[in-house]
């Protein structure tokens, strides 16, 4: 699955490492673009922020625990402080009172930072779309989102798929932050 998925992989290299390895007597020399190496390193070590407002938080905790472990993909250390985190997984409904808090957390994160909107509530208000006076209809009214995961709540495998897609996006250089910094 991973071979055909990633487009910037050379056919000879067996590992995921970007670039070409030229064999010379006495060792190998790696030729690659600096951007590719930085993207590879960043994508393999994203530390999430523990931000869970409601039910999707429980599925995020399930993804963190032993059956659907997400620390195999590099999300090992879930940090509580936004200054030490790379990716914020918005798991749960955002309401009008919580919106300034979310914006403040996002501003406190250091660049490069990525956002995953998990669950129907964070994508568009979800089940609380009609006739509520206090729900923000989608977290992307507040902060820019990179990956959307559908479900109410999404299965842990769906969240893992989203995390892997985020890693693809970073390697290909297509996240919002990479495009705007070009």
């Amino acid at each position: 699955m991973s071979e055909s998925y990633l487009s910037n992989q050379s056919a000879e290299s067996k590992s995921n490492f970007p670039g070409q390895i030229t064999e010379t007597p006495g060792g190998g020399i790696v030729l690659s673009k600096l951007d590719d190496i930085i993207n590879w390193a960043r994508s393999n070590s994203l530390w999430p922020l523990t931000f869970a407002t409601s039910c999707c938080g429980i599925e995020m905790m399930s993804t963190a625990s032993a059956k659907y472990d997400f620390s195999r993909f590099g999300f090992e250390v879930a940090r509580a402080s936004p200054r030490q985190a790379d990716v914020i997984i918005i798991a749960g409904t955002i309401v009008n009172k919580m919106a300034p808090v979310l914006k403040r957390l996002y501003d406190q994160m250091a660049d490069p930072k990525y956002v995953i909107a998990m669950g129907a509530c964070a994508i568009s208000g979800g089940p609380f779309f009609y006739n509520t006076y206090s729900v923000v209809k989608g977290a992307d009214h507040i902060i820019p989102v990179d990956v959307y995961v559908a479900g109410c709540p999404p299965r842990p495998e769906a969240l893992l798929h989203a995390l892997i897609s985020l890693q693809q996006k970073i390697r290909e250089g297509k996240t919002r932050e990479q495009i705007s910094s070009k």
Partner: protein
Amino acid sequence: MFEEIGTTTDGDLIINVGPQHPATHGVLHLVITLNGETIRKVEPHLGYIHRSIEKMCESLTYRQFIYVTSRMDYLSSHINNHACAMCVEKGLQIEVPERAKVIRILLDELTRIASHELWWGAMAMDLGAFTPFFHAFRERESINDIMEETCGARLTMNFIVPGGLMADIHPNFQKRVKDFIRLYKSKFEEYNEMVTGNVIFRNRMEGVGYLSKEDAISFGCTGPTARGSGVSCDVRKWFPYEGYEKITFDEIIETGGDSLARYMVRVREMNQSIRIIEQLIDAIPEGEYQAKTKAVLKLPKGEFYSRVETARGEFGVYIVSEGGTTPYRIKFRSPGFSNLSALDQMARGSKLGDLVAMMGTLDLVIPDIDR
């Protein structure tokens, strides 16, 4: 309007805990007045997950509003649905078939065990022990697999509907539940070895957060919070519903009043839930899983109140109906709302580190409080 964060005139410090904090289970904002490390006052600020459910339900029909109650106290989602279905059935005077009643109780008790497992793991993690979290989720995943096979979803399942159940149980249900009981019994001793008998844990929990019996009743506390202070208030025993009067189980009451008593109540309740499941799993009667109801439900004019015992306490649904297809006013009496009001009383005079132990034993789920 409330105290500004900073220092007051007599040298006390006012700090924020939350709303984004790893130890508050959800988004709870506490404004704490501290003198050194001793707590003077705790003031909860709610509303960070207020989704205006009561207003929303006034425009949903009686079959539609059940899904949103799953998401209020998401760890006891079957039990919340059960309360709403019972209220609508009371209004329409529908008789639920025996098979549906027994399966409803089985699903309720499995949900109670799953909720207590998550509480146990998360509380141990708050106190600093990371390993019990993974052990608790191992059992919880077994229950989620059972739920997924029968009900289709892992966390929020609208399976209990007015009239009975939405579909019949999967043929593997009984076998899987029996396997789960065997797994649980073999692993239960680990819990005692890891956490309950641990000397650090005991020192952090004994004598912390004392709530007297009169205060527990006056604050309206229900569930394990009140049972840890000696108040007998289990809805399944006092006002039995849907077949609980025929089942033998104990109501666990401890008189200590501190955090350790509330902890022991919940741990022993898990064993009682296993006892209930064992009595029922081989005796599911044959028959229909849903009573015949009309397609559009209209409750007659009047008021109806029904209550159940969730993992946190007494959950009540109060429907005021004017005869239409949507309710005129719905009020959800959530257990966390009253349990939280006791936190200020319990926390005065303790240290900041004890606050985490107290909030852990209160077992708060914030969307339940904010609705």
